[in-house]
């Protein structure tokens, strides 16, 4: 079952970002300040490895944006489904959308028993 989804507004923003930056990826952050933000990078900019979990792929038109999270964090998040949304905002580490005055945000819901 899919663990990640996208709002139409977030999909629109991904279309804009892909037009300027090429293929994209998300890595879900943790910790303070802009922690808990899904960070959007050019594909491959952030190197994932054995310490990461691939949560799923977001399909937008003909392109796909993979979503990653650290495996340690996934242990605490694995019972929730994440929908990537976007709100007006400013800054989130080196995430690509910040200069556009927008930032991605995760909205969560509990996975139901069939999804788990």
């Amino acid at each position, binding site marked *: 079952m899919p663990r990640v989804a996208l709002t139409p507004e977030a999909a629109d923003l991904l279309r804009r970002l892909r037009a300027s930056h090429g293929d994209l990826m998300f*890595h879900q*952050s943790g*910790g303070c300040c802009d922690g*808990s*933000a899904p960070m959007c990078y050019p594909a491959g900019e952030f190197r994932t490895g054995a310490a990461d979990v691939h949560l799923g792929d977001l399909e937008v038109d003909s392109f796909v944006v993979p979503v990653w999270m650290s495996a340690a964090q996934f242990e605490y998040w694995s019972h929730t489904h994440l929908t990537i949304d976007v709100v007006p*905002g400013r800054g989130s*580490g*080196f995430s690509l959308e910040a200069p556009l005055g927008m930032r991605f945000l995760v909205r969560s819901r509990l996975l139901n028993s069939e999804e788990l």
Partner: protein
Amino acid sequence: MTKYAAPGQSGSVVTYRDRYDHFIGGEYVPPAKGEYFANPTPVTGEEFTEIARGTAEDVDRALDAAHGAARGWGKTSVADRANVLNKIADRIEANLEMLAVAETWENGKPIRETLAADLPLAVDHFRYFAGVIRAQEGGISQIDEDLVAYHFQEPLGVVAQIIPWNFPLLMAVWKLAPALAAGNAVVLKPAEQTPASIHVLMELIADLLPPGVVNVVNGFGVEAGKPLASSRRVAKVAFTGETTTGRLIMQYASENIIPVTLELGGKSPNVFFSDVAAERDAFYDKALEGFTMFALNQGEVCTCPSRALIQSSIYSDFLGDAVSRTQAVRQGHPLDTETMIGAQASNDQLEKILSYIDIGKQEGARVLTGGERADLGGELSGGYYVQPTVFEGDNKMRIFQEEIFGPVVAVTSFSDYDDALKTANDTLYGLGAGVWSRDGSVAYRAGRDIQAGRVWVNNYHAYPAHAAFGGYKQSGIGRENHRVMLDHYQQTKNLLVSYSPNALGFF
């Protein structure tokens, strides 16, 4: 009660300029691409100045200036460097009220905190590092009669510092003071949410620093932070923020083989043992205040005591009193000296906190007080305010495991010492913790057993210079606020000197 006039209003102690360029080489320099971004105050949501939108070209220019200044500053005697730091401290102290109002307008925090904590701590931090650099000594190791190893501390050169938005001035000072004391030149990038107050400080102290020793480049992380953090011309990167960016910075640093210091947050447990409630006395009152410290700085503190663990034998009564204490927190205009909790620093931070309150409710956590956005009316309706919120739930819930970075505490109970420690340490992070007990042995053991870099025992949220601050586990690398931070800004040079006139006899 005093309410300070807002910057820009008549009678205000501070005036922001309409626009700030980059501070490079001791002067203000427009951005290479000529672009600026608007900066709102979280108090009302209205824009009050615009800021240079830096790019790689601006970072390069700042690095040129820093490299031009680094050698001279590194060769400056420690007495002279310490004098500069002390003069900066004096200048901040003499203008404390002005900087406090500037900081409150920038960040949204209550003026009583900037007046009593942020700025006095900044003053003391410069003085502390002025002191420790004078007291630092190298080492001599006599290897044998004729061979001596001399150890010198040398500055790294040019360092990059990326500053968070929760204490824009104090966190900049935490990083600047040790770096400058150690003889480095700095290129500093403030957070794009709080890019302006640092310039009020820089204008105030610019004449005290040789040009190029401190350079401030503003802009967005991806446009200015990344070129700085990944530059081959920096000898070290210091960052406070979150884990994904922390990893990315380590990744860039690995490409350049340079060190990093990282402070990446936490999910700090605040543990109340049953003997706290043995009397209803001053200590009990202090413990209740300790619980309520989650609301300090609107919860936007990496060490926010955002998990309260209360022993089951006192759970109901203590929590009832703690909720009452929380309900007494006065929310209002951040420039009013009676206000205890102000605005969240940005709209996206507000949205994130509300999304966490939502998932907390979905997971079945019970809201004991708060749980909503606060509309304070009038001009404050456009600002970003959240009610102080107490959740009751279980440590496996997301609100117990992620730093919400808002005025939200998640409360649960424990049965005994082992249960307390198991829950306290059941977290990815290890930055701060609190332990409350009248029994010194229990407090000591718990303090040692909690896997966190800073454990407050019978107090919370004190940040004096001379007490090391930094994280275990995923909370980061390095210790700020203490002499040991000099090690993170210095190389060790060893001169190994032979005083023997004789050949070894090998060749």
